[in-house]
């Protein structure tokens, strides 16, 4: 007989109320809080204490709820963010987090808020260092942390920002910020109905393996609570998906052979209770490990196994741009530099793993999931399910970070197939390991670059060859292959240019879209060699760039000529003061220090907004209700970057309304038109233009009603629009107007597609309607003996054409720099080795130094109110600026990222450092 206490029932105090639960042994407190007590504000990012999103207070101490047994809460006081909002610290933080836009996607925000409350209770007026120490256990992938630090410091000091609201140009709070800060935002894992079944995927543990299932019937029969198993045989339509029509190649479930570690081969559907204890290793499958290729070199070797029939030599595709005669120009150049550069896989590492659920409603399937591309999801699902588009509804949840990877489908086919087969709602959330193993990555690159210049400092020939490890399936690999040659020159005048890229298949996770689509990799090579070239010429690195920077009226390497809006010179000029003081500062420091050396580095970047030479439309709809409410159907997915706010600000300005008066309807394929995917820095530009046109159109309808002047002022009131112009006040009564099927008395729906032209065989044409431009400066400190590189401050100049919301611009810049910093110094995804957030190292709140953002506004002719895209630009110059700063500090050129301490130290030794 057991005479010890075996606890079944656990009581504790949650946010001031007594609660009781009966957890399983070994059940995490985070699970109990979310699934048994409905506290969905507790977010789960890793289940390993690596991300801190699940932070709660237990007896006032901040802990990770994922690392605490639910049983250990017995008798304790547990507080989540929802229980802290009414306290003095909570109230101050709610206001301050919004004022500073300290929340972008919002998924880490509950953990940040909880940690900040604990700090403010102990230290009412913390400084930045204390905030960093207190919040160091919570990872954020969007913000770059500086706004969070500012917000907590300001909450302590009682400094309040003036509340502002308005249209274009106003640095207002996010319209969706309050819900994020209060933990009410519903992400992919937060929306499933109670009692939903759970689907878990069986994945290949090998990079390449044949497989044979055991007796699935017996397996199911032996597991009460398991409803069914799904395999390729259960896919009613095409067992294939992808994002580029000509390259669609990825099966939902592999058939006979898995091509990368983590590839799905089957799925098991059952009750939540049974699936929580289900061990995928118990699934009846026999693996036959096959020889695999992990690198481009292996994949290109003679006799290498072919991943896909019809793609000889494992070559998926290539890209090519040729202008002038690069070789001749290099021959006549006075100085030539060349080098090889390498980068590894980079993981998106959003804090929200892929999640969602599906249900069947009146014969239609509804998929609720985090996504960057709802209509593309619908397209894929129609093919996979062999259902008409009308029978599928995609309802995106809030997205806890995407950065490109959530453009591809993940959980959608699994939950949809399971819901259709069982007839019940089915949910799924990727584990962190599953997310890292199976979703797309940034392409590893191997680049060979030669650049020449004449004695006067002018570029004379550039030749670029880049191989990109595109992994097992195509995903966005073709886009990367196309974009790189178009961008690899950087924003400079390069009359003689040759660039070719190749995307090579390997038995690795698919490489896909990641902020910059290959351009960050090519920028590392090009901007690093620019410093080498300037050195050889005896020129100042900034002066050299200014001399060669592209100007209005000069052709890009594709021969595209912009008459206006080329802002790179303005960006570089804006860095001039920081460049001069930076150089002086580091020289003074280095004169006095031996073991530490500082350097300052700069780099430029450019990025064409929207699809490359392809149609890329967005549609925005708005309606006026009889009660005077203006409804904006805003389908541009907000993945934290701020389109919910930006699109509304643009629309409000075009209409002539206060943005706070708008009623926002989010993305939902049943009620909101297609605003395209959130990628390629296109939403502000493309969807913004559609919103502007919709606003203009609705405004015109109203003015027409009363024959008012174009500059009339509108006031939306209950049942009436008051229109004031020189002639007086007109009242447009709405109640009596006929309503359309959606109940609107007036409705505008406008589409915008940016004007582009195809590229010819030499990559000549007009691939983009606009480019955005950027230049970063960084000061770093290198610990010579330990190889540690510490960025001390950034100055970032960005030409955004017109800053629709300057605060959102700063947020993008800071977040992009943090990701670029990670790519430069710490982040490398190694399949099978760094499949978690403690071996894969994204920057923490202590790693991102102060960032000064210089907003440049070289208006663009096509952009809404002159605005340009920004999302990718913010990451592109960061890594090369850091490498250039290391070189400035030490004379050592790092050609492989991440420049880990071990690699930096090895390079320093090779260069003769003690």
């Amino acid at each position, binding site marked *: 007989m057991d005479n010890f*206490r075996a606890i079944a029932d656990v009581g504790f105090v949650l946010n001031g109320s007594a609660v009781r639960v009966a957890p399983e042994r070994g059940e995490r407190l985070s699970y109990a809080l979310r699934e048994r007590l409905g506290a969905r504000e507790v977010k789960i990012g890793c289940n390993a204490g690596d991300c801190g999103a699940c932070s709660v207070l237990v007896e006032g101490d*901040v802990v990770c709820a994922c*690392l605490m047994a639910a049983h250990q809460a017995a008798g304790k006081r547990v507080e989540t963010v929802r229980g802290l909002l009414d306290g003095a610290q909570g109230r101050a933080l709610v206001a301050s987090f919004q004022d500073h836009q300290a929340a972008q996607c919002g998924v880490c925000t509950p953990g940040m808020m909880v940690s900040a409350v604990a700090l403010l209770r102990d230290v009412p007026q913390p400084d930045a260092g204390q905030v960093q120490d207190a919040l160091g256990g919570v990872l954020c992938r969007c913000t770059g942390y500086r706004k969070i630090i500012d917000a907590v410091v300001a909450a302590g000091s009682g400094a309040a920002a003036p509340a502002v609201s308005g249209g274009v140009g106003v640095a207002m709070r996010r319209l969706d910020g309050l819900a994020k800060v209060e933990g009410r935002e519903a992400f992919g894992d937060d929306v499933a109905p109670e009692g939903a079944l759970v689907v878990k995927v069986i994945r290949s543990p090998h990079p390449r393996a044949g497989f044979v299932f055991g007796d699935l019937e017996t397996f199911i029969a032996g597991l009460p609570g398991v409803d069914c198993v799904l395999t390729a045989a259960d896919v009613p339509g095409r067992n294939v998906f992808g994002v580029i029509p000509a390259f669609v190649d990825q099966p939902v479930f592999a058939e006979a052979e898995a091509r990368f570690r983590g590839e799905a081969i089957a799925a098991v559907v059952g009750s939540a209770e049974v699936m929580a204890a289900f061990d*995928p290793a118990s699934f009846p499958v026999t693996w036959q490990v096959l020889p695999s290729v992990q690198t481009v070199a292996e994949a290109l070797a003679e006799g290498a196994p072919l991943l896909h029939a019809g793609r000889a030599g494992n070559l998926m595709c290539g890209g090519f741009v040729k202008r002038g005669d690069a070789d001749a120009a290099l021959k006549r150049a006075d100085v030539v530099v060349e080098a090889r550069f390498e980068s590894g896989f980079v993981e998106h590492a959003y804090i929200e793993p892929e999640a969602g659920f599906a249900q069947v409603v009146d014969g239609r399937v509804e998929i609720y999931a985090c996504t960057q591309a709802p209509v593309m999801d619908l397209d894929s699902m129609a093919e996979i399910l062999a259902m008409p588009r009308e029978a599928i509804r995609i309802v995106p949840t809030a997205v806890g970070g995407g950065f490109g990877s959530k453009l591809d489908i993940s959980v959608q086919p699994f939950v949809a197939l399971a819901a259709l087969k069982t007839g019940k709602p089915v949910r799924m959330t990727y584990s962190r390991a599953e997310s890292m193993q199976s979703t797309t990555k940034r392409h590893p690159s191997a680049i060979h670059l030669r650049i020449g210049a004449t004695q006067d400092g002018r570029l004379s020939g550039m030749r670029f060859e880049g191989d990109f490890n595109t992994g097992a399936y195509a995903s966005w690999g073709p886009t990367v292959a196309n974009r790189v040659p178009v961008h690899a020159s950087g924003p400079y005048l390069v009359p003689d240019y040759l660039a070719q890229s190749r995307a090579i298949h390997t038995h690795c996770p698919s490489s896909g879209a990641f902020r910059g689509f290959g351009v960050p990799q090519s920028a590392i090579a090009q901007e690093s060699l620019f410093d080498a070239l300037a050195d050889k010429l005896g020129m100042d690195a900034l002066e050299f760039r200014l001399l060669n920077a592209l100007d209005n009226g000069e052709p890009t390497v594709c021969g595209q000529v912009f008459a206006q809006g080329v802002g790179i010179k303005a960006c570089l000029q804006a860095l001039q003061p920081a460049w001069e003081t930076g150089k002086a500062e580091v020289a003074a420091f280095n004169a006095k220090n031996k073991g530490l050396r500082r350097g300052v580095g700069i780099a430029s970047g450019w990025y064409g907004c929207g699809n490359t030479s392809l149609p890329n439309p967005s549609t925005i709809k708005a309606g006026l209700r009889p009660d005077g409410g203006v409804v904006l159907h805003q389908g541009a997915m907000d993945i934290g970057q701020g389109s919910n706010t930006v699109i509304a600000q643009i629309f409000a300005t075009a209409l002539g309304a206060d943005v706070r008066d708008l009623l926002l309807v989010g993305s939902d394929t049943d009620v909101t038109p297609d605003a395209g995917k959130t990628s390629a820095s296109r939403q502000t530009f493309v969807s913004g233009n559609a919103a502007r046109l919709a606003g203009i159109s609705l405004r015109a309808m109203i003015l027409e009603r009363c024959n008012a002047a174009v500059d009339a002022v509108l006031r939306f009131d209950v049942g009436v629009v008051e229109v004031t112009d020189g002639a007086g006040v007109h009242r447009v009564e709405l109640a009596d107007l006929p309503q359309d099927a959606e109940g609107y008395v007036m409705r505008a729906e406008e589409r915008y597609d940016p004007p582009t032209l195809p590229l010819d065989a030499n990559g000549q044409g007009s691939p983009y309607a606009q480019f955005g431009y950027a230049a970063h400066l960084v000061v770093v400190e290198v610990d010579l003996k330990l190889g540690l590189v510490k960025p001390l401050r950034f100055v970032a100049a960005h030409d955004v054409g017109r800053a629709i919301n300057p605060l959102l611009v700063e947020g993008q810049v800071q977040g992009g720099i943090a990701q670029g910093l990670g790519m430069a110094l710490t982040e490398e995804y190694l399949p099978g080795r760094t499949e978690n957030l403690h071996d894969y*190292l994204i920057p923490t709140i202590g790693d991102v130094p102060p960032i000064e953002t210089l907003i440049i506004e070289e208006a663009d002719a096509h952009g809404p109110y002159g605005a340009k895209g920004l999302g990718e630009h913010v990451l592109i110059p960061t890594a090369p600026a850091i490498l250039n700063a290391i070189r400035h500090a030490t004379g050592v050129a790092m050609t492989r990222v991440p420049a880990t301490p071990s690699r930096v*130290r090895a390079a320093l030794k090779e260069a003769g450092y003690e």
Partner: protein
Amino acid sequence: MAYLCPDNMADAFAALERGCVSVIAGGTDWFPQAGEVLPKVSLLDVTGLPGFRGISRVPGGWRLGAVTRWSDVVGADLPAAFDGLKAAAREVGSLQIQNAGTLAGNLCNASPAADGMPPLLCLGAEVELVSRRGLRWLALAEFVTGVRRTARAADELVSAVFVPDLAAGTVAGFRKLGARRYLVISIAMVAASLRVEAGRIVDARVAVGACSPVARRLSVLEARLEGLSVGAVLPVDVASLAGLAPIADVRGSGEYRLEAVVEMVSRLLGDLVAQGVRANG
């Protein structure tokens, strides 16, 4: 299978004897290792056992209860010889981990990169084990026997860590090398303690973690340091690191680790000597 949370030793021993139990304390290592699937064993939660938590003065030294948390260590009023342990405590993961993770858990997990090991080795810590057979004490270096291996018998629990008194004037420190500021699993870490008496280094102790299967003291270096004049060049070189065998992994090459240790030890000792001079002349 059950979740067992005894409040007395007899129940705890009974649970151990029943077998098929996994001991859990702060959970900060237990849950990541459990992964996503509920365990097929009973859990024995030792956080409620009498005398298992808290730091107390005992004859001849200090007793740190097994489930004393890292944040308890940070907040405790302890002699300067514990400064290395305190510094290590502040570098453990994050506040979240420090508020849950326990001293004994860190030792029993027996990771080569356990943050508590180097400073506790310098403190000459002993591990107190309790079972129905009574109490026994093992030197820390004898307790952790390999990667994920300890000398704890199946019927035993670690009840405390005992730290014998160090002479007044002992100064101590800890340094951890990682590629980012917080949430770091170290590339290498070093702890050291020493006294300065009459211008000479006395009782120098140096330990290194993450560079061998089990963190270890550097006996060659310690012998070189003994009696050395505070003005002398510190004799830290790769040869003085005998016993370390760092592996190459994603965090760094073996060669890099050894060199980094030389540098970190030199810097730490330099700081401690200066501190010791101020403390003791």
